[in-house]
């Protein structure tokens, strides 16, 4: 199956051995979008890699930016001003909304609903992308974060526009859920499909909603408390069975929690600097050493491992891609199911090939 296949989310390929229609063996094949991100990162300066991180997981450029900025801040020892932390949280959580919306849309595409849920999802996504565009100049490739802060300070009108969208969003989500969640076909096709045990999920290094759907309470926003997430009041939804339905439901619940975080951030955002005066972006030469920084991206733990030898280019630039590691258990989930279910399971893992292959 693949790499050109309408349901493989890009150029993913699976070698599937079948018995009738039942899968007995499944081997994922990667590399069709291997764009040498890490090699390019080692040959360019620190700041030059920032736009490349946009193109890693191209649905959530903001969180990739954030993870990279966080790692460089750890490497160079920069502080981040408070307003920038709030802005990062607003951007990151808006990105989470966009990503989960698209995921649900694509998942229903894989279930065979032919575009309709995706149309609704993209309608809302466009509103958020317009915000990003107004702020950073680009819809998708935002290149917004900087080491020690953010690039552009939003105007009060922009923040009002976010507030308006956040206030209206629950209504859309209700409408969306009325349309989808109780749907008979969804229940039949996802409940009990591709279950995963928590032990295997931990051992296989799964992160993000796929892990939490198995009931493991591990959210880096709560564990690391990076940024200023400890000031916010939100819950971490957990699944029960680890099946496809839980993975779908978890995203919907996470969107609701995300809205809570956004409301608190928009209420509390202070005035002030958006970039630390001591931080340096252009021609940055961090002291020799290494750092691994990670955040909770919409798909799971996205981390950057950087080794500096004191020069302007990182000696080693490594991306820890969440969806790549999450694919480890694809075979375990798919064995014994049918081809049609494998498509749905793959859709529920939420992969983006730009990040899987880098």
């Amino acid at each position: 199956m693949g790499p050109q296949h309408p349901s493989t989310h890009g150029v993913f390929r699976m070698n599937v051995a079948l018995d009738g229609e039942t899968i007995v063996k499944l081997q994922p094949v990667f590399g069709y979008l291997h764009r040498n991100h890490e090699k390019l990162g080692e040959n360019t300066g620190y700041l030059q890699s920032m736009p490349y991180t946009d193109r890693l997981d191209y649905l959530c450029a903001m969180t990739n930016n954030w993870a990279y900025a966080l790692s460089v801040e750890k490497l160079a020892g920069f502080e981040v001003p408070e307003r920038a932390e709030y802005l990062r949280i607003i951007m990151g959580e808006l990105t989470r909304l966009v990503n989960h919306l698209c995921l649900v849309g694509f998942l229903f595409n894989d279930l065979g609903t032919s575009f309709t849920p995706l149309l609704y999802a993209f309608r809302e996504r466009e509103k958020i992308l317009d915000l990003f565009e107004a702020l950073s100049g680009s819809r998708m490739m935002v290149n917004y974060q900087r080491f020690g802060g953010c690039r552009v300070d939003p105007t009060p009108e922009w923040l009002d526009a976010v507030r308006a969208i956040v206030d209206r969003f629950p209504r859309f989500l209700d409408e969306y859920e009325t349309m989808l969640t109780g749907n008979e076909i969804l229940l039949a096709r996802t409940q009990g499909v591709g279950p995963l045990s928590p032990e295997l999920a931990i051992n296989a290094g799964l992160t993000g909603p796929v892990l939490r759907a198995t009931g493991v309470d591990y959210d880096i926003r709560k564990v690391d408390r990076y940024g200023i997430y400890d000031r916010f009041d939100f819950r971490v939804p957990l699944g029960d069975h680890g099946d496809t339905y839980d993975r779908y439901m978890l995203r919907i619940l996470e969107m609701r929690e995300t809205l809570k975080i956004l409301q608190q951030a928009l209420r509390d955002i202070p005035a002030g600097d958006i970039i630390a005066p001591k931080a340096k972006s252009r021609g940055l030469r961090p002291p020799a050493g290494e750092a691994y920084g990670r955040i909770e991206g919409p798909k799971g733990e996205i981390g950057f491992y950087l080794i500096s030898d004191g020069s302007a280019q990182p000696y080693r630039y490594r991306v820890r891609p969440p969806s790549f590691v999450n694919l480890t258990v694809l075979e375990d989930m798919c064995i014994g199911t049918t081809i049609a279910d494998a498509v749905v399971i793959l859709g529920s893992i939420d992969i983006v090939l730009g990040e899987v292959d880098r």
Partner: protein
Amino acid sequence: MSSTAELLDHLRARFPDATLELVENPGPAAQHGLRLDHTSARLIATYLREDPAWQLDYCSNVSGVDWIDREETEKVTTTVTAEDGSTAEKVEKVTRTIPGYFEVVYHLYSMARKTSEPVILRLRTANRTDDTVVPSLTPVWRSCEFQEREVYDLYGVSFTDHPDLRRILMWDEFKDHPMRKDYVEPDDYEYEPTPHATVLERAAKHYPPASPAEEGSQS
């Protein structure tokens, strides 16, 4: 430091035969590493996963690092006794080549204990050319499976006891290991208007140099 040093002491007491080494990180992040030897690596890894005090059940990140041969200049001070009995200190500069190696770095966390600082394990190969073997930790943490394959593909580090060691990103017929620092990529250069010195250097090989008059007009 404290946690890694603590872990090191603990492991030294638990595994007296193993050769362990603290790899310090001089940067502000201060994430120190722990270098393991090949024979006891898997034993220690299993212990770290199972031991209730550590419970490092989650291996987050596996990266390969290519440490090329580097030259180190050291000042060696020798005391020379002169004929008249007085001693003088003589400073000599000694340059020696430290052979390169590949390193595989594992970042571990504990999901059970919810740790927020990684424990870093490092495995090193003997050299960069013929002996590039390290033990695989996939039997301990399944999450290493694809990432170790990636290290094998891009760096050429072989992992013993890896269940399925094949190329993962490049095609199977591919022979090179492109993430190595000395990798030379295929020359499919085409002209592009960039001022980078390296690009212009490659361009010079593809386009015959212009006559001096033309060159003058270009610059």
